[in-house]
């Protein structure tokens, strides 16, 4: 009987906390989905302001007055410090509407410069053929941040092939 008590205590602890966690998970799951959706839509809204979105297979289709204005594709690529999540807004004629970086772990001050809106604005209105570094294409990399710049370029190219 003496050996029984510790086992009982541990098992009881696990069961109680298992139930508590299950409950908390159930309560937070809808909120989490909602928060994630809200944040994603906010980011898409930066590229396509004033649109209604419909999501299909991870791609956001944007409508204004029931007209398809474009699509937004999220691409994950590997940068210098880890994964970079890039959101690419694409016009119906398959040119780039806008690019935003959702998350990254690039070096602050160096690689991170390639994730800023001021750098990303150069992608606007570029077509498939322009998406290469100069002189072949029209994209300029950040000096000293070749890896990050390349990762973002790859992401934009990948996005155009989707949807």
């Amino acid at each position: 009987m003496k050996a029984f008590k510790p086992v009982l205590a541990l098992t009881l602890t696990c069961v109680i906390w298992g139930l508590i966690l299950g409950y908390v998970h159930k309560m937070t799951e809808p909120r989490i989905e909602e928060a994630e959706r809200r944040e994603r839509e906010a980011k898409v809204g930066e590229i396509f302001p004033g649109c209604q979105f419909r999501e299909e297979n991870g791609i956001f289709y944007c409508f204004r007055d029931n007209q398809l204005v474009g699509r937004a594709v999220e691409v994950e690529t590997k940068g210098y410090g880890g994964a970079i999540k890039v959101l690419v807004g694409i016009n119906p004629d398959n040119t780039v509407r806008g690019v935003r970086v959702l998350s990254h772990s690039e070096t602050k001050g160096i690689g991170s410069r390639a994730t800023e809106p001021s750098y990303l604005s150069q992608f606007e209105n570029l077509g498939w053929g322009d998406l290469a570094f100069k002189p072949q294409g029209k994209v300029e990399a950040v000096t000293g941040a070749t890896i990050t710049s390349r990762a973002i370029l790859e992401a934009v190219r990948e996005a155009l092939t989707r949807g």
Partner: protein
Amino acid sequence: MAEERPNLRWEAEKGILRKNPVFVILLGLCPFLAISKSVEDAIWMTLAFGFVLLGSCLVTSFSRRWIPKNVRIPIFVVVISSFVTVTELIIRAYSPTLREHLGIFLPLITVNCIVLGRVEAFSSKRSVLESLADACGMTAGFGLAIVSISFVRELLGSGGLSLFGRSLVLLSQPVSGFLLSPGGFLVMGGMLALLKKLGVI
């Protein structure tokens, strides 16, 4: 013989300076150096840490008479990791970006030596009020440490501070090295040397 009234204020205050968990006892370093790149992150980290510490201390202190000695560590571990899980779910529901920002260091609170240390050494043996006071003090000490280091690193490393949407730029030529890992170690070393010199620790 009357029982001595626990000095709650003393229990709380010791965590801030005399027994500061980070600067004096050198515990809980993992999240400390990684999250101290920005004051805002540091504040959120302290809140998450505090929630886990307070919750775990409360629960273990409350149930201390029912926890058998030989199986206490696993039980502590279940309690602490459960609180960490709850914290993670709550933060995700509030702001997925914040969750990503804190990264792996949020779940790593589970093995934060401060939490396990306080639970094992203190709250599993003392009354609920005393444990609460101790946990508050330790959280304050942790917060003080992490925010002060972040303050230095963010200011020198990115040239200014950026808190809750408002920015203040002070330096035009920041030294980004402070934000990288060597900078973290060096700032900590410098801070410890300074505190030692001042006789604080």
